[in-house]
């Protein structure tokens, strides 16, 4: 082998902090994603709680309007980019290789890079709280409120640059999962034998790859406006604020499906497992997911029904948006047909999956209401929309994600969670969620606009705002229960065997937690529910029973840990700070780029340690 400069030997840390920093094991990265995203979810939740306390009664003065505007902007940005997306990524990481019978993802170091870059972006964004104030123009950042004339501080710059950094993380992860799913499926696992969660991940990754470039371009334009005095959105020189809205929502609507499709995938795993039946109409559910993703590109202007597009485009976007209800409805009906005739034991994951159907249905119905532009003119930018998005993104995405955490908890940790507390957690969350968000329907129809930091007593909004705030406290309690359950079970839960739910897919064929190499022997897949078919004796010797216990003798060569992914990410974040402060700080940006380049170079020529 030729020798190469910077050829530092690969790290070899089996345990400890360094093992986490240098890990490229998809399972460990999945755990890192999950824990980090959950912490950020709690931060976003506390931001929401503060807003709810401010709005609990009329004319309250708990936070100033300036702070309130930062709170809702950061709440939206955090929940979307730092909580729900990376929580989904946690599942992609942990579950996908196991479900498709692979030993890791296609690009393990790139996977580590995605995580560290995500963490860096999250730190960059949240550091703005302490460096002059967070962004305050809404998560949608409508021009010209984001212009330097309106927003001279650097909160907006932090928002722009951290979204770009997070975009890099998301794109790298999306490419990684597309390549992994296309190339690394076990022999016999054709596309139409892939588990539903793998399918939804695949579709989500494609959406991400197509959607993020749009927001990237829009953010670069905005950055150039703010930093170099260009005029994409500058009203004073004839710039067009509606351009920003089109760019943002061409990204923003597919983004909604990026948030919800993985949740639908999780639910499509939990329901068949606990009903002990295969998913009803597998091909239809897959196709419905693909159609939702495809049509997600044709509906963006329903976010802009009041912008004044004219009656023809408004009518067209009304029809396309209403049409999306059809594949969504198909999914709900197929899930219900899946559990029809089943034999369901109501464990916590199933409760969450059923809760998802119940709540997402409500969000779906209010979604059709918004599709209808003529009546939507009354609801747009009111609390009715706030209710809708939270039924979809909380009742949908978050409830499914929590269900997914319970579902895969034994696989991830090798321990069982506390079932009674898990059920309690569901009911407290279900009640709290409805208490917070259902009254918002009434508030919206009674004319309460979104994003107002206060309201008068005579508006008639006090009662339902009070109820909603009470619900927020209940919802907060449900997450304390969740944290308690997860932490105590992780530490002293009873040991879980490899297949606690009598599962159907390959991840249940190995021990819990899985050995580093996942499968001692790569399975051969003869059936959609490969592991179930094997267990029930429908096919023979496709999936080795106890696919990996971690104890067998093996000579499996696994990719080795690496220092370089985190180095490149650190370089990116330093460059990010330089770009935020611009001017002479471009030197800092150059320094960050240099670190990144060194990291990439060293990464490219990283040697392989001799296998022992």
């Amino acid at each position: 082998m030729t020798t190469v400069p910077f050829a530092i030997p690969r790290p070899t840390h089996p345990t400890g902090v360094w093992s986490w920093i240098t890990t490229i094991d998809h399972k460990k990265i999945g755990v890192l994603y999950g824990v980090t995203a959950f912490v950020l979810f709690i931060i976003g939740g506390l931001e929401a709680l503060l807003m709810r306390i401010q709005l609990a009664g009329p004319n309250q003065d708990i936070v100033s309007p300036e702070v309130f505007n930062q709170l809702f902007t950061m709440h939206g940005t955090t929940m979307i980019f730092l909580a729900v997306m990376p929580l989904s990524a946690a599942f992609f990481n942990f579950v996908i290789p196991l479900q498709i019978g692979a030993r890791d993802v296609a690009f393990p170091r790139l996977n580590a890079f995605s995580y560290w870059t995500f963490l860096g972006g999250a730190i960059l964004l949240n550091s703005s709280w302490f460096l002059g104030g967070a962004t305050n123009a809404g998560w949608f950042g409508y021009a010209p409120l984001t212009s330097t004339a309106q927003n001279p501080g650097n909160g907006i710059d932090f928002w722009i640059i951290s979204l770009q950094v997070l975009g890099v993380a998301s794109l790298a992860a999306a490419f990684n999962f597309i390549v992994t799913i296309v190339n690394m499926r076990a022999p016999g696992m054709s596309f139409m034998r892939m588990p539903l969660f793998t399918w939804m991940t695949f579709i989500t990754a494609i959406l991400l790859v197509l959607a993020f470039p749009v927001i990237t371009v829009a953010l670069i334009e905005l950055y150039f406006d703010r930093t170099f005095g260009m005029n994409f959105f500058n009203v004073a020189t004839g710039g067009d604020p509606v351009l920003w809205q089109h760019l943002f929502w061409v990204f923003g609507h597919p983004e909604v499906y990026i948030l919800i499709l993985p949740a639908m995938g999780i639910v499509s795993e939990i329901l068949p497992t606990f009903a002990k039946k295969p998913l009803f109409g597998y091909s239809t559910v897959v196709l419905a997911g693909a159609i939702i993703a495809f049509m997600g590109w044709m509906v963006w202007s329903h976010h802009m029904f009041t912008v004044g597009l004219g009656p023809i485009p408004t009518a067209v976007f009304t029809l396309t948006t209403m049409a999306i209800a059809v594949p969504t409805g198909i999914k709900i009906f197929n899930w219900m047909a899946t559990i029809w005739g089943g034999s369901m034991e109501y464990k916590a994951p199933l409760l969450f999956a059923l809760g998802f159907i119940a709540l997402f249905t409500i969000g779906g119905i209010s979604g059709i209401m918004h599709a209808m532009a003529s009546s939507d003119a009354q609801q747009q930018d009111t609390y009715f929309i706030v209710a809708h998005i939270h039924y979809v993104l909380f009742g949908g995405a978050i409830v499914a994600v929590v269900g997914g955490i319970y579902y895969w908890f034994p696989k991830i940790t090798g321990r069982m969670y506390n079932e009674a507390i898990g059920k309690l957690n569901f009911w407290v969350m279900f009640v709290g969620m409805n208490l917070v968000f259902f009254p918002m329907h009434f508030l919206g129809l009674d004319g309460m606009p979104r994003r107002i930091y206060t309201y008068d007593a005579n508006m008639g909004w006090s009662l339902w705002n009070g109820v909603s705030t009470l619900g927020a406290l209940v919802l907060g309690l449900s997450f304390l229960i969740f944290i308690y359950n997860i932490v105590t079970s992780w530490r002293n839960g009873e040991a879980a065997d490899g297949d606690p739910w009598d599962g159907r897919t390959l991840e249940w064929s190995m021990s819990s937690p899985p050995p580093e190499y996942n499968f001692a022997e790569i399975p051969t897949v003869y059936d959609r529910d490969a592991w179930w078919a094997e267990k029930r004796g429908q096919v023979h010797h496709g999936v080795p029973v106890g696919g990996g216990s971690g104890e067998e003798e093996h000579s499996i060569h696994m990719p080795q840990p690496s220092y370089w992914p985190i180095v490149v990410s650190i370089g990116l974040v330093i460059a990010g700070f330089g770009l935020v402060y611009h001017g002479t700080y471009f030197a800092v940006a150059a320094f960050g780029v240099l670190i990144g380049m060194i990291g990439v170079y060293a990464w490219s020529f990283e040697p392989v340690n001799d296998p022992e």
Partner: protein
Amino acid sequence: MLSVKQRSRQLVSFTVIGAMLALVLGCTPSNPQSTFDALGPIAEMQLFVFNVIFWIGAVVFVLVEGALVYIIVKFRRRLGDGDPVQTHGNTRMEIAWTIAPVIILIIAAVPTIQGIFLMANSPLTPAQGGLELDAIGHQWWFEFRYPNPNDPNQQIVFANELHMPVGEPVNINLRSVDVIHSFWIPKMGGKVDMVPNNDNGMWLQANSQGEFYGQCAEFCGVSHANMRFKVIVESRDSFNAWLQAQAVPAPDPIDALALQGKELFRSAGCTGCHATNSVMNLAEGGRRLPGRVGPNLSHVASRLYLAGLLPNKDEGSLTVNDALLQQNLKTWLSDPDDVKPGNIMTRDAKVYSDPDSKLEEREIDALVAYLLTLN
């Protein structure tokens, strides 16, 4: 023990009754911005479309959630259950639940599309002699302008309080001078955005007289919550009388303190942003001039609310109570940022931004005395 059927029936009826009760409690037409109290053709159409989809949605809700509860109760695991039948699908059923929503959506789409075109086409355009009004969004107040009935080359300018004749379509041109705002009078119709460099329009009609609330519906910065306005709907005759009164400047003050206030209004720099002449010439070719920096104050003492927020009148009345007005003016001039946080006057006017030029108590009294004469 109740049977499965009874139990699920009980659950379903409980859900339905609960939902209906919540709706009755939840949507209160008497609230000042309720969309259930539709008082004009646009709001009525929107309420109708909403009702169509609401009742469709209610039926879907009851069916889906009812079926879900039924399945949950019926198909629970019982002791000694083996594996259930492994059904993989049923093409006919799937086609059925694909086509059924399509049909329902087509039905719902008809009034929706009709509504979109109703909103877009005023029944009486300015060209056909309909009333025309300019509404201009500012951070964080609304400027309004009517054509001067006495001179087609002039507009009458006022702020935060819109007057409309009852039963007539009013065509509203929507503009913004700074960021995106949204013009919304819930009881008369849905909102339309005021976008800088992208002029919009809408039409509204009020079918009953009285006072109505309006509010900016697009997030527009610090005091978005305080960007509110009021609408006074009156008979055509009183509307005409009001418009004529607006066209004429208020008489000069005679009171010494008020005269002092008038002088101070000029010397303290207020006139830099606030006009006290309500009539404005159109630019060449009838082009409309951009919005002014501060609200036009030529008839500020005739408005029922100060800054669109503080009531200058007793509850339920539609006439100004001078004592309240005086108190509100004093509150506003003493600390405008307390009433409307972030407002541009506090930021840019020397008397607020420069501690050395701060208004003294007696100066505020003089200004209040002057502004009180602008009725």
